[in-house]
Structure formats: structure tokens, C-alpha cells
């Protein structure tokens, strides 16, 4: 495993920010790290990068212990912190040369030119960082994170504040990087998780509440049995509940309902039978699954 956390805890002034978290991420995997503000995502990421030391538990990155091998781990990790801190008085190329110098990269010019092409900052390469738009600054932030060709990439809200076009560009870049590297990234944009991630980890109040693949999480929570249905006329909800056991019904509007079942029953077929027996035609029926956004709300509010 590229990154492994075992029972990791961290407290600030006696308050637990991270509470016995354990998870693993393998090579070529993109892990979406979700949680409400203040849940402990950034603290966890900072511990993986060795910026913060955990109070309890163990973290290993590429088989190296974060408490012992910080300098070695630094060579395996690329990090884009929240708010993308950059030296704004430096020029783009000057900044990248500075970072390359710290990593002691040998052929700096070649590496930086490749990086500039990869992140699409070519036409802005000779500008000062404070003259760049937010999207380009984000690209520069990503460029510094991958300059050492890291095995593990930690990205803390890499797409926050970007316009839709920039968002798609950055997402594509992350997807491309994720093919060969381990990527852990946090975000508030749920569609992003659905579009990019292989797995999702949800953290709330410092505790890990979900660590599953997106598909299994969705089926786990919805049971693949959520139906949105519109009848010709209103139905008697109690009557339907009598006929089909263990279902939940919520009214969307007029004769439209959202019906979910916890059992593994053929909900569509049962609803069809119900409509026939009550001579109430079905105008529209759609099976749906919960979006990650709904799952996130459901889990974090529950906890």
C-alpha cells in the first residue's frame, strides 16, 4: 500500500481533531476525502505529509514511517495545501526553479518545460504569480506538487474557487495523474468525487464513517431500491405501505412520490402491480440511486 493509516489520532488543546482513523490507499488509486468543514480532513492530510505528527497510531507512506523517515517521505510526496500558498512576488518559472532546486532535480530546465506543458501554463510562464488568475495559480500549485514526480499526491481542495472550464481542466489533470500515482484529494464538490474517484472516505467529527468504493457505498446505502414515480392521480400512502412492506414514501409533489425499500425486493414490479390493481396509471417511473451528495448528507447528519 502506498499510504496506510492505523488508528491515527491527533488532538488540539485536548480536543480530538482526528480520532482513531484507519485506511489504506494503493498505487493508481484516487481517493476522495470528504467531510464537513472542521471534520479533520486537512489535519489528516497534514499528518500524511509529515507536517504534523500524530499523537497516536501509525502512518506509513511508501512503506516509510512518518515519524522516522520524514526526509525520505518528502521525496515520495507531492502536496498542494488548502488555499494554494505560493510566493506571489516570484515569476512562474523562477518559482518552479526554486522548488526544483530544493528537490535537487538535475535537469531542471527539461523537467520544468515538461511540467509547464503538462499543466498548461505555457503562455503564463513569464508572468509574476500575483498577475495570474486563480485557475493558473492552481495549475502552478499543481506543478510544484508534481515537480518531483511523486508516488503519492496529496491535494487539499484543489478545485475550490475555479470556474467550470478551469475545473474540468484540473479534474482531467488529476485523473491523468491518478492513473499511475496514488492520489488523495479532499473536496466539497460531490460531482467531482463521482467523476474522479475510485474510492471515497468520509470523515466526520474526526471519525472515519465511510471507507468504500463509490459504487458499493451507493448500493449499500440505497439498496438499489429507490424509485421516483408519478401516478395519474394521488394514491393512498397507507394503503400502499400495507401492500408493499418495509418501504418509505415521500411526496415530491401532487401525485409524484419517492419510494425506497430497504429489502431486496423488485420494487418496480410491485409498484406496477399496485398501479394495475388500483387502476391508477403510471405516467412516469424512474429507478434512481443516491448521489454522493445525498449519501454525504445522510451520513454526516446522522452522525
Amino acid at each position: 500500500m502506498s499510504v496506510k493509516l492505523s488508528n491515527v489520532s491527533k488532538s488540539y488543546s485536548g480536543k480530538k481533531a482526528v480520532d482513531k482513523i484507519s485506511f489504506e490507499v494503493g498505487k493508481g488509486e484516487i481517493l476522495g476525502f470528504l467531510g464537513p468543514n472542521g471534520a479533520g480532513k486537512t489535519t489528516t492530510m497534514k499528518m500524511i505529509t509529515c507536517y504534523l505528527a500524530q499523537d497516536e497510531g501509525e502512518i506509513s507512506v511508501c512503506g516509510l514511517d512518518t515519524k522516522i523517515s520524514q526526509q525520505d517521505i518528502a521525496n515520495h510526496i507531492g502536496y498542494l495545501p488548502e488555499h494554494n500558498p505560493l510566493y506571489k512576488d516570484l515569476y512562474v518559472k523562477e518559482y518552479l526553479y526554486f522548488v526544483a532546486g530544493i528537490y535537487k532535480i538535475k535537469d531542471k530546465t527539461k523537467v520544468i518545460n515538461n511540467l509547464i506543458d503538462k499543466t498548461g501554463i505555457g503562455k503564463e510562464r513569464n508572468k509574476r504569480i500575483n498577475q495570474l488568475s486563480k485557475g493558473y495559480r492552481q495549475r502552478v500549485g499543481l506543478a510544484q506538487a508534481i515537480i518531483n514526480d511523486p508516488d503519492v499526491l496529496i491535494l487539499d481542495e484543489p478545485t475550490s474557487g475555479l470556474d467550470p472550464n478551469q475545473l474540468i481542466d484540473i479534474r482531467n489533470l488529476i485523473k491523468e495523474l491518478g492513473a499511475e500515482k496514488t492520489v488523495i484529494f479532499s473536496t466539497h464538490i460531490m460531482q467531482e468525487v463521482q467523476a474522479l474517484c475510485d474510492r471515497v472516505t468520509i470523515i466526520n467529527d474526526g471519525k472515519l464513517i465511510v471507507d468504500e468504493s463509490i459504487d458499493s457505498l451507493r448500493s449499500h446505502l440505497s439498496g438499489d431500491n429507490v424509485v421516483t414515480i408519478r401516478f395519474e392521480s394521488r394514491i393512498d400512502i397507507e394503503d400502499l405501505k400495507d401492500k408493499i412492506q418495509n418501504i418509505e414514501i415521500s411526496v415530491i409533489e401532487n401525485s409524484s412520490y419517492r419510494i425506497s425499500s430497504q429489502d431486496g425486493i423488485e420494487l418496480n414490479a410491485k409498484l406496477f402491480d399496485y398501479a394495475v390493481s388500483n387502476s391508477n396509471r403510471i405516467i412516469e417511473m424512474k429507478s434512481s440511486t443516491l448521489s454522493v451528495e445525498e449519501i454525504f448528507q445522510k451520513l454526516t447528519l446522522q452522525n
Partner: protein
Amino acid sequence: MFSIYKKEINSFFSSLIGYIVAGVFLVFMGLLMWLFVDTSILEDNYATIDQLFSLAPMIFIFLVPAVTMKSFADEFKDGTYELLAVYPIQEWKIVLAKFLANGTLILIILLPTLVYVYSVYQLGSPRGNLDLGAIAGSYFGLFLVALVFVSIGLFSSALTTNQIIAFALGSFLSFFLLWAFQFISTLPIFYGQFDDLVQKLGINYHYSSISRGVIDSRDVIYFLSVIIFLLFSCMVVLEKRKG
């Protein structure tokens, strides 16, 4: 380490503040040494530049913290320290690189004052009647004072995210270390018994000694010890600030 050193130097000269700080120092020194009657070399009738070495530490109390104030305060304010700490470079190398860079900047600011040496050398009667050995010793002492102030400035800058606070704290601590022990030694509790010992804790005692042109290893060890202590304290503060 050299990358950080180079970046610090470039950052200083890419901002207007750098030139203003250097310019103000040189204009102020020029006025004091050549124009103002009370301190002017021309009024003194002696071929020395002692005025430079007695006035410069006073100006350094404000100049050096102005140069160092953003070193760590800005890094913490902008969040760039987080990245720096994650890069494969040890903390002591970051502190040392910043110390050397700021020391170099002070040296660069100090270099134009060699014009005063040349001027007095030419104005002396007979020409060249100047104790260059004593001047070299004084420059060395002045530079050591500046380096102590740089380490104070870095320590102050590591304590806060606000440049103004870093500047004020740096100036106060520099003033304290330069002169306060001199004043404290005159207190009745120390006077006559430990006043010499208390004076030795301050910079002024050792600076005066070196300024006479005698480079005593005890003075050099004092300066180096203070610098190492402050840089180490700076590292401790940086480690604590990470949380």
C-alpha cells in the same frame, strides 16, 4: 539550501521595500557623517570614521528588523511555510539559509559605506593617514552585531504572522541586548559587585572591545554563542508553530 538563500535575496531586491530600507540607511548615515554639525567628520578634524561605528548599531536596531521582519511572518501568513516544511529540506537548513541570506543583505547594504573610508583616506593629512587595521576590526565587529540582530529578527519573525509586530519585537530585543545590560549594571543591586559581569552579557561591551581593533576570541565566541542560541530558539518556535 542555496535555493532558499537565492530566493530570499531575489525577493528582497524585487520589492520596493528593499531599496527603500537600503536607501534610507545610506542617506541617514551620509547626513549624520558629513552634514549634521554634531556628528560630522568634517567638524571633527580627525581622520577617523568612528562616527560610523558608533551610529550604525543604533540604526541597525531599526534597519535589521525591517529587513528580517517578513522572513517567517510572511511565510506563515501566506501558508508557504507549510510547503517549505514538507519539502525535503531540514528545518535547520531553512533557518540557516534565511540567516545567511539576511546577513548577506546587510553586508550589501553596508558595502557602500566603504566610500566613507575612501573619502577620509583621501582627505587625511597627510593623505592616507588612517588606521585601516582598526577600521577593518570595527567593520568586523559591526557585522557581528548585525548578524546578532539578524538572528533576533528571524526569531521575532518566527513568533508572529504580523510583520509590524515582528519588526517592533525585533527592534526592542535588539535594543535590549545592545544597551540594556549597560544600564542594568548601574543599578545599586549590581553596581560595584557584579556590574562587570552584567555588562558582559550585553553586545555593547564586546562590540566596544572589537571596535578598538583587537579581535579577542572571547568576544567572537560571545557573538557566535548568542547567534547560535537565537537560531536554535527560532527552530524551536517553528517546530511549536506547526502544532
